[in-house]
């Protein structure tokens, strides 16, 4: 018994629930027989992977859903043994090169090249190319991306690359220009609510539209999260009531608490406490950007107009530097410290005005 999110995932382009126009485009693309390299990007939970799988099914038929997990071994030039897991069907190969972190270039060079350079023997009833799906392309190092450039052109005849990323900002322009960009925006709240209703109907439940909207809003327009939350709500209380509590993920609660702790008190001691909590978040692999966002969202609630701007500016500044640097905690802490200083000053000024 899978979770709803997996159970009710659409498998065909035609069954997609939103961005139908885009789905139509894709269908037409496939019908033409060929298509260029694709760069699919969009926020998490928008349905990128689902869309890609639908596309592949459209391309190769249901055989593409017979997936197998494979372990691939490599050796780096420095004789380090690497192992990477790929997901493959007869027609395509899905790999996340960033799994091996620093050595992703080797993966690109070895795996993709070998895979892309092999010709199909029997092209009857099949396409003359296979597809390599690379996920989390924005996490690739620059080296790996450069290694990808030439491969993309050279093996055009036998292989199509479908790149999947959250944002194109970290994809080098050279690659962006070689791909057809395909943006999958996050579904709107209404769409999500609608889908939630739909899922519940399939499960034989009735979901009040108000609750659906609330879940959709709470999910931050992340459909996956919305459906998971919906299921959690169902477990928590059924039949649904329109004002029942929505269970948010633990880490989000934790993050919110952290932010309110910052607002609550500004002192070196509190900074140390908050640092502990940030460490906790980071060790749970919550992306630092998410932490920044969560913190800012909470903090801004307590600020006045001008301070709001300043805080936002600070957050943006530090987040930018976070991407340039290596240790996330430094930058998050720098943000928190500067917020504390700013906020304390703001508070004291207000106090002096009041009295």
């Amino acid at each position, binding site marked *: 018994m899978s979770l709803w999110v997996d159970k009710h995932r659409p498998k065909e382009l035609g069954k997609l629930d939103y961005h139908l126009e885009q789905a139509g485009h894709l269908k037409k693309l496939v019908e033409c027989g060929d298509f260029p390299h694709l760069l699919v990007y969009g926020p998490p939970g928008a349905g990128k992977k689902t869309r890609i799988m639908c596309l592949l099914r459209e391309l190769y038929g249901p055989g593409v859903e017979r997936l197998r997990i494979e372990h691939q071994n490599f050796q780096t030039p420095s004789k380090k043994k690497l192992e990477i*897991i790929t997901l493959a069907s007869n027609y395509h*190969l899905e790999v996340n090169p960033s799994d091996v972190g620093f050595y992703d270039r080797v993966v690109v060079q070895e795996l993709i090249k070998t895979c892309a350079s092999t010709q199909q023997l029997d092209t009857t009833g099949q396409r003359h190319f296979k597809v390599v799906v690379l996920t989390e392309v924005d996490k690739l190092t620059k080296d790996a991306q450069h290694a990808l450039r030439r491969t993309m052109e050279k093996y055009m005849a036998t292989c199509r690359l479908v790149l999947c990323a959250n944002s194109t900002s970290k994809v080098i322009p050279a690659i962006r220009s070689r791909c057809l960009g395909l943006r999958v925006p996050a579904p709107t709240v209404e769409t999500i609510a609608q889908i939630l209703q739909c899922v519940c109907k399939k499960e034989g439940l009735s979901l009040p539209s108000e609750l659906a909207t609330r879940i959709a809003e709470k999910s931050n327009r992340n459909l*996956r999260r919305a459906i998971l939350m919906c299921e959690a709500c169902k477990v928590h209380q059924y039949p649904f009531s329109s004002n029942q509590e929505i269970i948010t993920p*633990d880490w989000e609660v934790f993050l919110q608490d952290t932010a309110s702790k910052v607002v609550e008190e500004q002192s070196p001691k509190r900074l140390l406490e908050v640092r502990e909590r940030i460490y906790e978040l980071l060790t*749970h*692999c919550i992306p630092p950007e998410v932490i920044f966002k969560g913190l800012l969202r909470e903090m801004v609630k307590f600020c006045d107009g001008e301070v709001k701007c300043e805080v936002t500016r600070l957050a943006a500044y530090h987040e930018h530097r976070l991407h340039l640097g290596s240790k996330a905690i430094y930058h998050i802490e720098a943000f928190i410290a500067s917020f504390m200083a700013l906020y304390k000053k703001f508070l004291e000024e207000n106090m002096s005005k009041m009295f």
Partner: protein
Amino acid sequence: MDIRNYFSPVGAKKKSGASSLPKKDAKKKNVIIDSDEDDPPPQVVKRQRIEDSDSDDDIFEITSKKKSDKKNEEKNKNKSKKLKSLPKSESPKLKPAAAAEFFGSNPVSRKEKKSSSHTKEEVIEVIDDGDDDFSKTLAQLDEEETHKPKKPISDSKASHNEEKPKPNENSPPNKIKPEEKHSNLSQSSKLSARFRAFECRKREHEEASIPKSTKEDPKLLHRDKKIKLASTEKIVESKDESVTKKDSHKEEKARDKEREKKKSDEVRGITPKKEKKESPWKVKDEAKKTTENKITPKKEIKESSKKKPKNTPGKKLSSDIEIEVKKESPKKVDDGSNGHTEQESTPQDEKKNNAREAYMKFLRRSGPANPGSKVIPEGKPGCLQGLVFVLSGVYDSLDREEAAELIKEYGGRVTTSISRNTSYLVLGSEPGQSKLTKAEQLGTKQLDEDGLLDLIRTLPGKESKPDNKMDQSKASCKLKAFAREKKPAVVVEESVTPDDTQLVKPSSAVSTPSPKKSKAFSQVSVSSQGSPASTSSASSSPRTQSLSSQEIATRAGDVLMWVDKYKPASVKNIIGQQGDRSNVRKLLTWLKNWQLNQFGDKKPTRPSPWAKGDNGAFFKAALLSGPPGVGKTTSAHLVCKELGFDVVELNASDARSKRTLENVVSELLTNKVLTGYATSQGEDKTSARHALLMDEVDGMSGNEDRGGVQELIGLIKKAKIPIIAMCNDRNHPKIRSLANHCFDLRFQKPRIEQIRGPMMSICFREGIKIKPEALDQVILGANQDIRQILHHLTVWSAAEKNLQADDMKKEAERAKKNIKKGPWDVCRTVFTLSEHKDMNIHQKADLFFHDYSIGPLFVQENYPKVMPREAGGKRVATLELLAKTAGSLADGDLVEKLIRSHNAWSLLPTQAIFSSVVPGTHMSGHLSAQIEFPRWLGNNSRRNKFDRLMQELHMHMRLNISGSKLDVGMDYSGPVRDSVTRPLVKNGMEGVKEAVEGMTTYDLLREDLDALLELAQWPGVKDPMMNVESKVKAAFTRTFNKDSHMSPFAVPTIAKKKKVKVGEEAYGEEEEEEEEEDDDIATSGMIKQKKGAAAKKDVQSGKEKGGASSSKGKGGGVPKGRGGKGKK
């Protein structure tokens, strides 16, 4: 009119009086003087002694002040009235007491004694003229004396009474009332001793320069003869047995006593000027110095050639008068500050209440208001000699440390709390209340910063004497300082062990021409080695020892290294190892009792590793560990020598492999030392007692010493002789195994004070002039490594015999550079203001380079714990600084990323600035909490672990989910965990099936569940598995393992084996495994199977089990038609 004019002739006459006396006589006199001091009637003397040791500084100070007063009278009689008014207002009770006595009575006796002292009389008259004013002024100065319980107040009162009625009398107060005489006995006797010493010295000078001069005072001659008689008697006796010597000593004492009583009047007759002129200690020391000179003839010649003794007294006088002149200004300042502080002082209870607040204030205390705003005067060297300062509050321009350094540079002492000895309390703003009140109680003079600077500016230096006298005076100065330092020790030595000194007398009498000299010398040598930590001389016979070492110094000085030359000759002389609980003592007892402990009836048990005061009886070996240059090897050798063990030493220069050790030790056990035959007459003196010294055991490494440590351990286990091992690094893995079998003795670095004394004595013997402050710098620079210190001294002294504090500081700084700091120390230095304030930016950046990989992490971990001084306790300011620091650290992180990713190591200095210097500057203050190890490291590895778990989970769940690794962590972990745990919590045993189903849906393994639980666990949230009964948990695990789970991925081999083991009871299990593998081979990759696949198991069970490797083969190839087999 200058007093000088009075003085020099007097001195000359006195000298001339003495000059006709035989040399011996003078010397003898000194002996008596010494004994005067040492062995007068017990009670009285004791008091004196305490006084001596306690308040020598005071005495000096007082006298010098008196000088100033006198000067007032003589030179500015008018002005003295002004002065007078001040003391009157301050001290309603006039107590010129002791000083008045010194002044009044002495000249008379002198007159009695010496017919020649007409000039002196004149002086006295002058003084007595101004007696009224003078006594009042004195009273003011002596005010603090009256506070001191040890000063005979009754005395002073008596004398005061006496003085008052006849202030203008022309005749000096020579007639002293009996009771006063009595009560003043101790004082006067002491003074007499000093005076005589002084006189003696003068006479000696006279001897040296003008061998035959003027008339003798018959009386004096008579007295001297008497003394001579006594001392010759003593000499004769001293050549006899020590017992009789003692007796004679006692007799002499008695005589001395008598004489003292008789002379106390006489002594009082010393001209006031003379008393004032020389501080008692100076006199004594000078005496010592001269006698010392005589003992080492070479030196004496050298010095006497340089000096012109004739001029001595006068010149000295002049310098002393200078003191008077310059003393005035600080005094005035005192008065001002006194009133000032009185206003500030608050009631005591209030102070108590505010103690905490005051402390907080202290913590927040800012630096000097206008640092560097005042010109620091260039004082005469040693101008603050003998003065004791206490610093309090914040000064306008100087830092506390700077002020302390300044004072030390000019020879003053800085203490932290006020005592009777304290000469000045230097006050700034916000002074400590307790200090203020105490200062008021004790009547300590109070200065402000300007006063201190004035003091330095105006006080004459101790060495500011004419050039021709330069050398001698310097030497005497040094000696004086020395003697002062060592004073308590000397007293103890001399008073407690008179036997010792007497015992050695004969030998000294032989070795030196006259007993007096030797006695004096012994005093010097004792004083120089008086500190227990002396390097060279055995305490049993200090004189011979020091003499012999002196000889060595002259003879072999060029040959031996200092380290060897001044190697401790006995166990007692090892620096820092004198205490009863010292390592050497422990080692000694251990070695002494070794035979007994190891082969006695009672076998000692192994002590607990934490037991204190263990004597190591259990162990057959001892392990001495500690930094280099603290005397481990020396200790071991000396201890063995002391107990008569023959030493076989193996150090890093010997091969110490297993075989060599065996050979050596077997030889060692059978060998005997032949020196016994050579030295003893016929007796069999060969010792069978051996000890094996394994030096530098941490150097046992490489091929040559293979198995050495193990062999050593084996050796220790079956040893029949004591083994002493030595090493530097106690925590080295190799040594750790050895340490389990050894009596662990850890040598610590000796403290600076412990090293200073012996080093001073060495410097003295080598003729190096070095100030204690300079020496301290050297010691610090060498990191308390005694060997290093000696080497440094050797090198520096080769170039320059007169070592200055500044140069030393530089040199020490240079030496210091090589000391590597640990990250904790680095972090402390980065943030602690007092530690880094003298550093320039390069030195601060250097801190970063002590360990640039972990240093920044330490800084980052600990910076919020610093209380920045700049903020001054304001919260917003603190937070702003904190933000700046955090920003700078983030900058440092950016630089680090650049360095690491582009190998741009040339950017390291940039990172140093961002990660260490800037944070240190912003947050400079003090650390309010303990420095902690950076948690970033732990958190980072934990993060990596979680990342790995997530990746694994992602891999396992991949077929079912669309999300990435991160989505697994953020979105899926919670719901999936709940889907497994919820049925268990809710339904207990009934829920097991559902839970297992939940697991299989997502192809999770049992391990994955644990990972999920860990991943989804947040602090403050309850672990759902906690609610599951252990029975249910076990059932769940059993059920899960019993069922076959067709995972779409290759399970890691370890997991598989485990699985096989657990599920052995089920026959089908094995087959399933095989089947699964078969499948792998067939399809060259696993095809996802659902429950339906179980039906096919039997068909395929016959097939051979294939290698697991095939599942990992490259699977990019075209799959064959069997792909449909496992289709869902």
